[in-house]
Structure formats: C-alpha cells, structure tokens
C-alpha cells in the first residue's frame, strides 16, 4: 500500500514543466503500476495460512527424531524415545522468551484436551536456568515433562524459540512449527497428521 506514495510521486516532481500541448499519462501509469503491486500483495495475503498453522521446512522432516535425553525438573532422566507410541509435541522454549510465555496457555489447553496416552508435550529447555524453568511451570501451570538437553537444539536445527516439532507415534518427525502455536492450530495439525 505504501507503494502508492512512492510510485505516484512522479506526478509531483515534474523536473521541467510539462509541455502542455502533448498530454502525459504519468498519473495513469503510476496508478496502474501501484494497483498491480497492490493486487499482488492482496493475492499473497489472501493465500496465506493462519500464522498458527505455519509449517516450516526442515531436513529432519520424515526422518526418525533425534534422541532427546537429559534431566527433567525433578532430576530424573527424561527421554523422547520413552514417549514412543503417542504423538509428541517437542516444544523448545525459554522462560525469558516473551512469545513462549504467550504460547504457554495454548500448550496448557492442548495438553488438557488430549489424554496423555494420545498426545503429550515435551518441553525442551533452551538456554535457561533449571530453577527459572521450575518457577515458570509452578506459576504458569502445565504438567508435561520438561527436559534439559543442550544438544537437542543442534540435532533438531532449532533457530530460535519458540519452535516445536510434531513427532508421530512411530518416532518420525512430521512437522516443524516456528513461532508460537495455538491449541486450535495444533488440533488441526494433529487431525491432518492422523488422517494420513
């Protein structure tokens, strides 16, 4: 839209006064050009999926998920492979990350909607203090397993938080989600994945 001011500027900067005998169509062409650019923009906007459904590419899609292993909140060892047989949403997060804080209630809602035998969230701590993480969960709720495995972000190719991966009951990585998720978006995704 801002293209309007930029491109229609031509009518206002006639370097030399236009010779009045020959009509010029600067405004028309500028307007049409702007119109075309905006039509493209509208086309792009109209075909975008909701942000909550945005699925990002990753080399590990369709591959067996790399193992995640590390101490959980209570000190016992948590492994991704122990969760085999159900859908796992591997959620990389940090307590200092505002989008993660915003995303958290959505994850709570998601975990409340699905029995643990069907789908679970596995939170992977990303550059954070275990004590902060414990407080985070104490204050904000959520009872899913949390694991501190510094190597996991490299194995999964995580660029920033929040980032999530949906791992199938067979241990295959199905989807990568960059940015905050919503419970509705995750449900849609799960339904789609189960349909396959």
């Amino acid at each position: 839209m801002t293209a309007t001011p930029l491109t229609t500027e031509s009518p206002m900067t006639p370097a030399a006064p236009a010779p009045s005998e020959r009509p010029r169509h600067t405004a028309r062409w500028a307007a049409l050009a702007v119109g075309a650019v905006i039509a493209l923009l509208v086309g792009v906007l109209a075909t975008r999926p909701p942000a909550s459904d945005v699925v990002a590419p990753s080399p590990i899609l369709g591959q067996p998920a790399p193992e995640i292993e590390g101490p959980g909140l209570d000190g016992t060892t948590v492994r991704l492979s122990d969760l085999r047989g159900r859908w796992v949403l591997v959620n990389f997060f940090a307590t200092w990350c505002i989008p993660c804080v915003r995303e958290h209630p959505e994850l709570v809602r998601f975990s409340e909607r699905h029995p643990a035998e069907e789908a679970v969230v596995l939170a992977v701590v990303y550059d954070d203090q275990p004590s902060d993480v414990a407080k985070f969960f104490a204050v904000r709720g959520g009872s899913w397993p949390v694991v501190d495995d510094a190597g996991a972000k490299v194995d999964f190719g995580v660029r920033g938080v929040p980032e999530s991966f949906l791992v199938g009951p067979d241990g295959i990585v199905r989807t990568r989600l960059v940015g905050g998720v919503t419970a509705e978006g995750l449900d849609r995704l799960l339904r789609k994945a189960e349909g396959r």
Partner: protein
Amino acid sequence: MNALLGQSAVLFGFLAAVSGATTTVAGLVRRRPTLLRRGLAHVWVVLGAAVVAAVVMERALLTHDFSLKYVADNHSRATPLLYTIASLWGALEGSILLWALILAGYLALMARRFRTRADDPLVGWATVTGLAVATFFFGLMLGPANPFREVVGKVAADGAGPNPLLQNHPLMAFHPPVLYMGYVGFTIPFAFAIAALATGRLGEGWLVETRRWTLIAWALLTAGIILGAWWSYEVLGWGGYWAWDPVENASFLPWLTGTAFLHSVMVQERRGILRVWNLSLLIATFSLTILGTFLTRSGVLDSVHAFTESPIGPAILGFFSVVVAVGVGLIAWRGDRLRSPGAIDSPLSREGAFMANNLLFGAFAFVVLLGTVFPLLAEALNGERITVGRPYFDRMVTPVALTLLFLMAVAPALPWRKASGELLRTRLQWPAWTATAVVVACVASGLRGLGTLLAFGLGAFAAAAAVRQLVLSARRNGWRGLMGRANGGMVVHIGVVVVAVAFAASSSYGHRGEFRLKKGESATLAGHTVTYLGSRTVQHPNKRTVVADVRVDGGQVYRPALNLFPNATQAIGTPSVRTTPSGDVYLTLIATPRTDGAPAVLAVIVQPLVMWLWLGGAIMVFGTFMAVVPGRRRRPTEPASAPGGARQAAPPPEVGHEPVRVPVRDVVGAARPAEASGT
C-alpha cells in the same frame, strides 16, 4: 431480548446506510437536490442505530446477560465496572461495533457541518463514500463479526471474563477508543478525496474543508499510539514500549502517510501543486487503516495483540481491495487531467523541503510496511516464513528518522519559492549553535554512541529552530498570535523532538538485570539499589495477586505484582515503575517465592527519560489543538481578529518571514470558494 434489540439496530443501521448511499447516488445521477438532501439525512438514522446497538451491548454487559456469546466470552460477574464498560472493545466483534459507532458519529458531524450544502455534488459523493464504508462495517456485524450472537444451549451463570491483559490497567479503557477515533477519523478526508476525484473538482476547496478533520484525526491517532505504547510499558512487563509488532506498525503506517499529507497539503494550499499526490496520500492513509485491521485481525501474522483468530479476514481483505481499486481507478481516470499547472522553482525552498519530507515519510512507511508483511512475502516466494525483527527496523528506520529530524530543523527556516544562502545562515545560526552545544555537552558528560548523539544534536537543532519561530511570532503578534497552524505545527515539532530524544536515550542507555533476592537482600543496577522486603498474596474478586514490596534507593516502596486470573493459566505481571524526569526504575516480579523465605526473582530495568515519551506525545496533541483552534476565532464576524477580511480567514500566515504573502490558490470551481472559517 438484548440479542433481538441489538441485531435489529445493526440491521436497521445497515439498511439506512445502503438506502442513504443509493438515494444520494440517485440524486447525483439525476441531479435532484431533494434526493441529495434526503440521502445526507440518512446519516442520522445510521448514527441512531449505532448508538442503540452500543447501548444495548453496554446494557448486556452491565446486566450480565450471558445469553449473548460476546458477553459470556468477555465478561464475568467479578469484572470491575471500568473493565465491564471497556469490554465493549475488548474483543473483535465489540471493536467492530465501536468502529461503526465512531464512524456514524463522524458522518453525523459531517452532515451537520455541511447541512446547508447538501446539494453540492462534492458533499454528495463524500456522503456516498462515507455511507459505503458504514455499510461495510454494519455488514460485518450482520455476518462474520456479529456481536449479538446468542449462546447455543444452556446459558451459563457466569462468563469467562475479559482477556487478562485487557483488564489489568485503566489505560485499556482509553487507548482503543482514542486510537479508533483517529483511525476512523481519516474516513472523512478520504471521502472528500474520493468526492474530489469523482466530481473532478480538484481545486483547493475540498482541502480547506477537510483540513481540520484531518488534523483532528491525526491528533487522536497520535494520542492513541502514544497511549498504546504507554499501556504496553505499564502492562506487558518487558520494560519496553515499542516492539515493531504488527499491531503497532498497523497504527503507525497511517500515521506516517497522514503526517506526510499534513505537510504536503500546505504546498498545495500555497502553490496549487501536488494535487494528485495529496489525494493519493489520503487514499493511502485510509487504505492502510483497513490493511492494518486485516493484518492484525485475520490471524495471518503473529502479534502481541492479535488476540483472536477470526473469520473476518477475507471480508476485510476484500474491502481493502475495493478501496484500493476505487482509489487507483479514479486516479488513473482523472489524475492526468487534474495535474497542477505549477512546478517547484528551487529545491532549496519551503516546498522543496516539504517534498523531501514526503519522500522520507513515504520511505519510512514503505520500510515499516515491508518489515511487517515480509514474513508473508518470503513465505510466498520460497515457502519459508522468515520474520524480520527489531534489528531490521532499527537499522532501516534510524537513518530516515535522523534525516527527518534534520529536515525538521531546516525546513521552517526556508522561505517559499527560493532561499538564499545568506538568509539561511541568519536563520539557522542560532539553532546550529544550540545543536553543537548540546552535542559537546553530551560528549563531555560521557555519553557515547554515534546514532544517539546525532539524535540529540539534530533534536536540539530542530527544537531550537521551532522555538526560534515561536519567539519571533510571539514578538511580532503578541501571545495571542501564538495560536494558529504554523505555530501549532512548531509546537508539534517540539513534541516530536521530545519523543525522539526520549526514544533514543531510553533505547540506547538502558540497563536490565534479573535478581534472585531473599527477604531483606538488595541488588544494585546502574546506580540504583533495590531491596526486596517480602511479598504477600491479595485476593480480589476477579483475580489473585501476589505483591512484592521493593524499596528503591532506600526511599519509597514499590509494589510489582503477578496476577493470576481464573480464566488464564498464565500469570500477568503488573510492573511497578518509579518515574522521574531523568529516568525510570522499572520493576517486574518474574517469579514469586514458592515458600516463605524462598527468594523471589525480580527484573530491574533502568531507562533514562522514558517519561518524556508520554509528555512529548501530549505536546504533539496540544500543538495540533493550537493548529485547529483559530479558525473558530477568526470568523469574519469578529473584525478585530480577521485582519485581511474574509479571504484571509484561513489560519494566519506561516510565521511571516515573507515580506509579501502570495496567496496563489486556484480554487477550481468550488461552489463556495474557500471560505475557510469555522465549523
């Protein structure tokens, strides 16, 4: 009962808008003044319907009518009164209702203002445009954003309550309505721009008519943006006030094009050029308000504010396309015939500076828009959504903003048509010395950072230039002469400088620390000592709050808190801020002690000059007020205050440096030429 009444009111408003628009079109086509007058009168029916709908919604909220889905979703019995009233705009459907109400109010003001000129086709087309926009918003409420939808099944005894973020600070009651009044206010200038294109009367008549509307809308938008920044600072708890979030950008984009318009319109008034450009800016501003609504309400982008994923996206995008198609089509059709006769004589002149200003604001808007939609464009091109964050905006926006500050200093010193070096030297000497002195003082007191120092120096330059103008004007005309557009503009400039300096200082010289403190322990950050004194839990009807007592610098005790709302699993912080003119100490409680005697986690943010952001905003609004007011006082009926007779009734000359004022205005066929005075 409420549902029936509300839905009927919305339907009634929709039909009135449709009927008013068609009647007016019929009157325009058949040239029947009676039909035009009748069409304009429909505006009052639309206003009545909007008022009834809003009152019904407020009544439903206040009487806890949970049979309405909107009330059940956004209200609870425990919600305090202020937030109950504010719940009208707490969620999507209600904000569309507020939008429709404000729009109807503006249209009614327009009908009142032009009641004696209803026969004028220009007013007729403006009415059609305004009512068409109203039709769209009432239509939204009939379809995808129906605020009066009833709950299916059993009516609950209590509702969910407002979004926790929205019931946590009284500013929430003011920020959205003020912002919307700014947003929606641009509809009237847009309507007149469309009318000017439709009638082909592209002279300055319509400009003079709408100038005050634009100024008022701009002031409200400015106030709304600043209030939003303030709300975000006081509520969100990350210590910042501006994050280049899509919603913030959505309100900022029309502000940028609107600001560009307010400047370039002066060139048209004075010189009669840039007509098509000015129309384009108005159309762009209005389109950007609609595009912004789409970006923030359709759930297509991640944002702090896009609280709901809603089904109105396609409708708004469709409306945006229609608006753009009409605007672009009209300009393509009329633009070349309406090209102005004049040209700019010298780039080193007031009009040259205004043009540079417009290019910069255009570039600014483009950069912001690109950054906002970039994730979507990138995804369309290579399938991956890449977000550009703060670094992109900081890198791209800083040079533009600094150049604008420079221009702000130089432009008011430039005369129209052509400047001589000699003249500039005398006029800029004093501001330039002030700027140098400020930079030297800053460096001497140990401040570093090229961009920040430049911002301070150029800010001082611009502020000194503005003060110089004001002093000259006061000397010439006395204090009463200070009111008026040119001086109001200078006051706005001072406000902008204050905001820019505060922005630069607070974002460059801030400190942030997180401390785990047991009862009685202290921590020090950037020269400030905070002592944690303990915390307690307070139960409110609508929330449970954990309050920490923190002593700052051995003085007063501040109370950051964490709020637990029953309808949210996430705790919402209430930061506590010690505000002084020199800077803020911002405290947030990150984590509460789990047991007595366990440490609490506090985040402490020390930022200089934050308070001046809000004050600068207030100065900007006040300056706009100064610019709006004089027309009222300069009616020809007051001979004493209308020195040049009726033709001079337009606001007083730009602080008159020019010995002779050349009123080059070619009023092309305006039915009643620019008799600019009052409402």
